[in-house]
């Protein structure tokens, strides 16, 4: 506006402010402020109501020395780990099957839809469904196992899937991967379909076997997608809440093995009788820092591979 010259061509640029204004205002109120407010609260002694008093890092000290926080973190990582291995493993296998040049499997659109189905249903409904199906002495699942065992003249001692610490975490991990493997499969498949078929044909003509093709062509080309899936699922996975929260109860023996960080946070942030807002905020931030560190580490690992490869490339060229 200052000079004649700039005004004609770039005056429209000011419209940029207008276009981002609604977003920015809501973003400041509902995203930035709450995050900063939580940060502030994490340094205070606020419990249920009243005025918060600044107490420095005391809450953080308590989080770091709280064995139940670390237990919850361990549970989260364990459940997430089992889940991600199953989920990605299954998605990988399916991708290999459907991208195989020799078998040329048909029906991808159909299978894709069916495999994605469990992902559509709200976790609350899934939790309910499996909680009733997996009931120890009265659940359909154990009745089926019992009858299969009987058919083979074996004695099946019913397993309390959700009630014992040996099983509950893994059961939840399996259900979670059941919900998500279709999603990962679609993503990976999309990546493979994005690869030009020329690569595969060329490799085949060169006499490369199935696994060589997969290792040398498919894998490197879909790595960015893998990276993306790994990071997003990490952020999502470390916040796991719905399934374990709805499928366990605080007085069950399995509770200690399925209580996730998010459930731990919920206990101190919202559950009547244990609300300690300041402490809960510190838990939130500690978890955030851990997620941040792991994400950075994860990215570093991926990048390190990149560098190594680049180095090898150079060496080969020499």
């Amino acid at each position, binding site marked *: 506006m200052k000079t004649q010259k700039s005004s004609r061509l770039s005056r429209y640029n000011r*419209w*940029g402010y207008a276009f981002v204004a609604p977003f920015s205002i809501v*973003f400041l109120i509902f995203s930035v402020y709450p995050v900063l407010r939580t940060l502030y609260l994490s340094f205070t002694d606020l419990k249920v109501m009243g005025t918060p008093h600044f107490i420095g890092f005391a809450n953080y000290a308590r989080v770091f020395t709280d064995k139940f926080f670390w237990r919850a973190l361990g549970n989260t990582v364990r459940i997430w780990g089992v889940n991600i291995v199953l989920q990605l493993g299954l998605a990988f296998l399916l991708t290999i099957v459907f991208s195989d040049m020799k*078998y040329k*499997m048909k029906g991808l659109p159909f299978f894709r839809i069916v495999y*994605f189905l469990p992902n559509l249903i709200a976790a609350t409904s899934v939790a309910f469904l499996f909680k009733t199906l997996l009931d120890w002495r009265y659940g*359909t699942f154990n*009745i089926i196992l019992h009858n299969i065992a009987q058919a083979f003249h074996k004695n099946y001692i019913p397993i309390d899937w959700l009630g014992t610490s040996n099983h509950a975490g893994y059961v939840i991990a399996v259900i979670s991967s059941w919900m998500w493997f279709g999603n990962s499969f679609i993503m990976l498949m999309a990546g493979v*379909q994005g690869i030009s078929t020329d690569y595969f044909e060329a490799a085949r003509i060169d006499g490369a076997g199935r696994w060589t093709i997969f290792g040398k062509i498919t894998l490197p080309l879909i790595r960015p997608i893998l990276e993306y899936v790994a990071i997003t699922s990490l*952020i999502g996975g470390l916040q796991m809440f719905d399934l374990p929260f709805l499928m366990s109860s605080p007085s069950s023996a399995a509770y200690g093995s399925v209580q996730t960080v998010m459930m731990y946070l919920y206990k101190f942030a919202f559950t009547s009788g244990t609300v300690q807002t300041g402490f809960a905020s510190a838990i939130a931030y500690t978890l955030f820092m851990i997620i941040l560190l792991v994400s950075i580490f994860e990215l570093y690992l991926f990048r390190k591979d990149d560098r190594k490869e680049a180095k090898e490339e150079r060496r080969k060229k020499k």
Partner: protein
Amino acid sequence: MKRQGKPVGFVVNKTILYILLILLAALCIMPFLLMMVNATRSGVEISHSFSFVPGKSLGANYRQLSDYFNIYRGMLNSVIVALPATFLTAYFSAMTAYGLAFYKFKTNKLIFVSILIFMMIPGQLSLIGFYQLCTKLHMVNSYLPLILPAIASPGTVYFLRQYAISVVPRSLMEAARLDGASELYIFHRIVLPLMQPGVATMAIMCFIGNWNNYLLPMIILNKKEKFTLPVLITTLNAATDLQSNQGAIYLAVAISVIPILIVFCIFSRQIIGSIASGAVKE
């Protein structure tokens, strides 16, 4: 590998693969099937045996369920939350994305970087602060905190910004400007139609996400009349009266699943396409 080319081995392997694929598909469908069947059986039947043959208690289960709560009210509530939220996300994200992609202004970089940062920040970080904000604004037990924040959805903006850059040619806008079109006209009449496939993709994902959202509505809403479907479903957990008839519980879960299945049947191509494109884009 030795068998390569041998038709018998090939056919056998392929058949085995198909069988495995179909078994996996069955595994995905089975729980839903059991749920649908059990919804038609009485509590006593369910705990005494299991069967794939529908029972005769659908009516009785339904009556008991409707005595306990109005599941359609929950559905309506979910629509009341999910539709506006989806619309706000789609419209304002497209607008913001467009602004960030094609206009040069001082805070552009800053906003873009904040978006990147907030995409990495897990939701739980803001949960406590967000709840406190709601209590201060007297928005507890209201739908506004579930709908309004949809205007600012960093992930969607990020995706659409990349999308806009790749599908909207800058020259088109310049030409329109020379013809004297206003900026609002350019956005609504030229850019938005071009971005429509990407926006639709994001809108569908956003709708499913909103529809299935549990934690936030559970914290914000207090009255059963206001509960969205997922929260309403979890009250079954505490419904000691209803526990005496599992059939009614299965029925409730079955009814809650039906709308999203219908949406999926209609939009399955777009939904799957959007996940795929999400993967390729990032």
